[in-house]
């Protein structure tokens, strides 16, 4: 064996340290972001999730005004936790539409009666079809959709107090 070969393991190890060190320095994102950001919403037309609130279709999103699209469900605990912050967004003038995932009309009505209704419209997505089509992996998630029906921003997880200004800002960027 030539002398340099004995340094081969050291070289390989140095490469490992380089990669591992680089990875450690990167912020670790636990969330999978949607690949649909910047792309138009697919066509859809959903029945109302409960009798008192109208349903949701693509045409409603293409009315020229940017909106927040909230993916939620009455059976989801973080959705209840984010309800006051959605109400705050509505108070500040954000138009919010909802998509209820795998839900029952009476449960939706009970949830709205208990936590209030910030939604202009709520569509029922019984098989998570729209949810999967726009690249959402769980509930709750909140998307910013511009006036042309293009997805501009995705917020994963519940909306907390500190996210309210951020979402208002994203809504403004989308042309409100």
């Amino acid at each position, binding site marked *: *064996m030539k*002398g340099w070969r*004995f*340094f081969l*393991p*050291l070289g390989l*190890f*140095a490469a*490992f*340290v380089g*990669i*591992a*060190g*680089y*990875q*450690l320095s990167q912020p*670790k994102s636990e969330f*999978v972001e949607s690949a649909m950001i910047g792309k138009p919403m697919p066509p859809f037309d959903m029945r109302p999730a409960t009798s008192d609130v109208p349903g949701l279709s693509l045409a409603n999103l293409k009315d020229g005004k940017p909106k927040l699209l909230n993916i939620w469900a009455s059976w989801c605990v973080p959705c209840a936790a984010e309800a006051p912050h959605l109400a705050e967004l509505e108070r500040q003038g954000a138009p919010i539409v909802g998509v209820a995932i795998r839900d029952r009309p009476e449960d939706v009505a009970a949830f709205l009666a208990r936590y209030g209704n910030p939604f202009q419209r709520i569509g029922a997505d019984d098989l998570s079809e729209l949810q999967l089509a726009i690249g959402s992996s769980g509930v709750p998630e909140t998307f910013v959709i511009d006036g042309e029906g293009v997805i501009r921003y995705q917020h994963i997880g519940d909306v907390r107090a500190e996210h309210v200004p951020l979402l208002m800002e994203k809504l403004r960027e989308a042309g409100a």
Partner: protein
Amino acid sequence: MIAELGLAALWLAAALAALQLVAGALAVWRGGEESGGELAGLIRPAAIVQGVLCVFSFAMLVWLFVRTDLSVKLVAMNSHSDKPLIFKIAGSWGNHEGSMLLWITVMSAAGALIAFVERRLPERTMQATLAAQSFVALGFYAFLLLSSNPFERLPTPAVEGNGLNPLLQDIGLAFHPPTLYLGYVGLSVAFSFAVGALITRQVTPEFARAMRPWVLGAWIFLTVGITAGSYWAYYELGWGGWWFWDPVENASLMPWLAATALLHSASVLAARDALRAWTIMLGVVAFSMSMIGTFLVRSGILTSVHAFAVDPERGSFILGLLVIYIGGALAVFGLRAGSVAEGEKFSAVSREGALVVNNVLLSAILGVVLLGTLYPLLTEAMGVRVSVGPPYFDPVGTVFVVPMLLAMMVGPLLRWRGDRLERVRKPALIALVCLAGGLAVAIALRAGVLSTIGLALSAGLAVASVMPLRGRSLRRLPIATWGMVIAHLGIAVALFGMASERAFNKEELAAIKVGETATVGPWSVKLAAVDPVAGANWTAIEAVMQASYAGGKPVELHPQARSFWSPPQETTESALATRWNGQLYAVLGKAADSERWQVRLWWKPFVTLIWYGGLMIALGGLLALIGRVREDLRRRIVQRKAGERRAEAVP
């Protein structure tokens, strides 16, 4: 007071490690016996006292857990006063801080043991070895004391503890981590021996004999740990699988592969004074793999089903330790290995030749596993997220496992130094015929490609592994040779179990009412009842199933879906019906609707052989260890008697 005693003992032990390092380094630098004198006399006692202090410190931690002292943060975070005693004790190492304390305890206890018993190596190599051991230990003391103090008190004691993860509240798992740790850390001794020998350039057969029991011991624990971990995952997770190529599983497999290679190359060095640089290299690599595994698991840079407490700061700390120890050892290797003489020559067809093939292929498999484990890291650096699983590991691993097992069939039959293939033609032919027979049966049964290869190889290997017994007096055969035969046979047995499970596994997912029957393979399983039951810290829904094999007398199974309340979590407790030819595996799922229950059933022919094989491998290692230690003790007695006789002869 208990916590403070434990912490004080730990600081003292760290100080002794520093003393041991300084004294050892000075003694080696000045040249050993002649001038190191007084300082060198400190090394062994420091190592021994350090070991005692660490064991004391760990005992204090266990005591805190037994008493459930909720003023200690670690206890409050990981224990609960209502927990059964055995899990209170196990809870002391079922968390990051406690497991690191266990790590350092095992490491310093091993250091104390070599300082106490190892007398045959040149004193200067021993000093270098103990200095290296204390150098490695110091890093872990620093890690423990500066960033993961297990004895930290809470400003105000907690009212009640958080409890232990329910998945870990299982007797098998309570002892799985310490077993693996004994293995990982035992390899640290091999690492220190390798570094010590590199520093003094005294890589001799004596060195290999001194190192071998440590490697064997560590390897036995690793084998048992991996086998037990695999069985635990199989019955506790309720997924029906026994190996998932998860990063944490790979983290234990990689040191095992390296230790297996090291074991065999150390045998060559001990018997024939060959493969010097290679043995040293493997000694460094084996422990490096343990540390890299720990790093990958604890830093959270890889995603795994084993959700350990993840902390990037700790990750950086461990990476720093890796750079110092592995980088340092490999740098010393690069500088020194060239000047370690090559050792004895041998011909390609010989025991050594076969062991070289075994070593190269084991290293290749290690490379395959390492690459597969690190690949997601590589691609993530380029912005692509991938997950590497069985579709990579199974076929690529097979490419190297097949030639390795073929070499394993012939190798033990060959003589040292040089041999002729004609001499082993007959036993090799017998093994090949069995292999061909296995192949024919597997093809007839339409097993898949990998399973067919596995079944054929296991048949051939099973026969080949007992061939070394041919024509020898079984009563006079050395114990170590028995060890080799049993370990190799264990590989064949485990391989047969794996291939059979893969080829003939039957699965059935059914939604049935109470009173209805589902069938899987030769079994028919009747759901007799579903009842609520309660345990010490959980409640569960338990199914009563009557399973009957091929119309025979039914056995009763009780799979459960458990809900723990401290902390709240749901687990599935699978139920198993074991026969000589396989296992029925039943899992109770959720209610499908108001009347029907989801039931998942597997029939896994010969699956238990995987773990019996694993235990046979470990037993083989144990016999080899006993044999080697006995040989060694005899040699010592002979030497002492010779010494006494010489002393008598000189008036």
